[in-house]
């Protein structure tokens, strides 16, 4: 179905429609991304949230077309600037990747080459995508480092990655992602390994960037509290599918899907101090042995017979979608 969010006039930067990515393993087909649809508007931040194995990272990799064997995109569309990235050739993707769409990884050393100086790497990246003189590229590299809050960028350009701290390295990775002023950045848990005060600094920079440059961001994370303050919209993933999708306020204040509801309930700050935390029973299922129907049914307190059928993604409230037959409508203040 058509994702209905956001309902703005300008066409969204990215439209993902019914994306399917599978890994063909000896044990069988693993549907890591199963019928995933969402939009990201210009200058908007989408928080893609889920626990390990929910398919959030593979979704990001699929958008970048970085899924390797035995994985393959088996269906759906990734519409970006009027082009379907699923159908783009390898050469077309090479032009787009790093230029119009950039990615930031959890480990900045995935982006950085440990044996090259920062300036070499940044200038190389720029010259790969456009005709630019060495001097102009260097100037741009310096400005970008300054923009992400690296002190004395002139000297730091001459440093090697190991001479930076973890937080600074992540800033360099972000600066490289920003070099071409991309339309979209896919950020995969970029602050998870960082300390709280450093995470706060990076989140503040990213927020500023999205607001000033109009770059759209997909922020992949397992941490609901990070996206609460950063994102415009949230898509919660479970077992390869989007369980719930809507604005931050709708999803976090009035969760419809029992999984979202359980996830929010298990956050310590949502509980009374010292009382047992509300917990979701059981554990994340293996994608190889999902029960027929809703993948959450075995852990769901509201599961009923109907849940043995596949729930469709449905706009249960205006601009607020969930894949559930028995959503939490009472809490959202709506009669069932």
């Amino acid at each position: 179905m058509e994702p209905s969010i956001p309902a703005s006039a300008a066409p969204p930067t990215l439209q993902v429609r019914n994306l399917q990515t599978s890994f063909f393993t000896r044990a069988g087909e693993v549907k890591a991304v199963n019928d995933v649809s969402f939009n990201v508007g210009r200058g908007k931040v989408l928080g893609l949230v889920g626990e390990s194995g929910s398919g959030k990272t593979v979704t990001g990799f699929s958008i970048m077309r970085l899924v390797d064997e035995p994985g393959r995109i088996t269906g759906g569309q990734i519409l970006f600037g009027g082009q379907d990235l699923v159908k783009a050739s390898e050469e077309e993707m090479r032009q787009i990747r790093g230029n119009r769409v950039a990615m930031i990884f959890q480990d900045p050393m995935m982006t950085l080459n440990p044996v090259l100086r920062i300036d070499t790497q940044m200038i190389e990246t720029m010259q790969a995508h456009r005709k630019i003189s060495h001097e102009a590229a260097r100037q741009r590299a310096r400005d970008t480092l300054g923009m992400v809050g690296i002190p004395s960028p002139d000297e730091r350009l001459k440093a090697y990655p190991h001479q930076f701290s973890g937080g600074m390295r992540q800033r360099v990775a972000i600066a490289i992602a920003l070099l071409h002023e991309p339309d979209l950045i896919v950020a995969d848990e970029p602050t998870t390994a960082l300390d709280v005060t450093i995470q706060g600094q990076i989140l503040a920079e990213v927020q500023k960037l999205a607001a000033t440059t109009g770059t759209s961001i997909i922020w992949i994370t397992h941490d609901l509290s990070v996206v609460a303050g950063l994102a415009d919209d949230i898509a919660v993933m479970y077992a390869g599918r989007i369980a719930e999708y809507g604005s931050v306020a709708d999803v976090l204040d009035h969760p419809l899907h029992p999984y979202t509801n359980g996830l929010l309930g298990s956050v310590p700050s949502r509980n009374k101090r010292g009382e047992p935390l509300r917990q979701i029973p059981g554990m994340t299922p293996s994608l190889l042995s999902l029960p027929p129907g809703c993948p959450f049914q075995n852990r769901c307190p509201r599961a009923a017979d109907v849940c043995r059928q596949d729930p469709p993604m449905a706009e249960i409230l205006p601009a607020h979608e969930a894949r559930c037959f028995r959503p939490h409508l009472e809490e959202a203040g709506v009669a069932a």
Partner: protein
Amino acid sequence: MSETMQAAPAPVRAEGEKMIEVVGVSRRFAKRLDFAGKILAKLGAPIREEVVHAVDKVDLTIRKGEVVGLVGESGCGKSTLGRMVAGILPPSDGTILWKGKDRTGLGGKDARAAMLQAQMIFQDPMSSLNPRLKVAEIIGEAPLVHGLTTRSEFGRYVDEQMRRAGLDPVFKARYPHQFSGGQRQRIGIARALAVQPEFLVCDESVAALDVSIQAQILNLFMKLRQELDLTYLFISHDLGVVEHLSDRVVIMYLGRVVEEAPTEVVFSRANHPYTQSLLAAVPRIEARKKAFATVKGEIPSPLNPPSGCHFHPRCPHAFDRCRAEVPALKEVAPGHKSRCHLNDLPNHGGMPV
């Protein structure tokens, strides 16, 4: 929020007996010069041994039945302190008293008994479990060696330990890799509890787990505390988890304790500027499109910490004295200690601006 917090009973269990008393404990790690380095140093090259003061003159008392949260960012020495308290790392200076006695002075049987009383649960369950042993062996080995169970009772003893940690004893013949992360952490907990300790040091024990699994393990910790009357030192960088679990919170920065207070006081009336910026930087789920508060600068290298108060280069309230003189950890209110010169300023009222 602060209303309900103030209504909560003030410092609990302050009356319990002292279980652990850490007095002036320091731990240094030195990177010794190699042969070539020594020669170069002799020839006058500007190289010298690098010494990290991981923990710098820390005092800490943990009473029976208490849960003390130890909070700090990377490199602040919280894990090193935890290891020393658990007795698996000797301090460079200072003494650690276990129920009033110095553990290093104990001999043979007494020393072993004291060691068993304090157990540690680690962050990464996979690297703290022997991958070649079956779960039953991992859990049962220590109790068997220490005579807490017998060969004939072994099976039953292990079953009981597993059930208590929320594991099905059917799985006792399996290996660690056959379990999920949450279950592995339960194995680590079962192993620690199998020697019947009174005191547990949990070093980032839920940091690697997904939120829904983290809640299960935290609930298990709280249940065990009640059932077995355990005392905890809970080390974490996650303030939400610490707030939920602890009676008292200790905050460290670059090897020193900067603030110590009952949990509700730390989260409602933090005194030290570092604690305040830490609390401001924590992402909150209630926040909507907020401007993230930032602390300027980075965590300095513990190899070369700033003079005076370690936090002064990042502190919004720093003045001359902070650069020159190390502030002392002083009581600012009953049970509330802070290491900040601002508290000495007149008309300050113990709260930085």
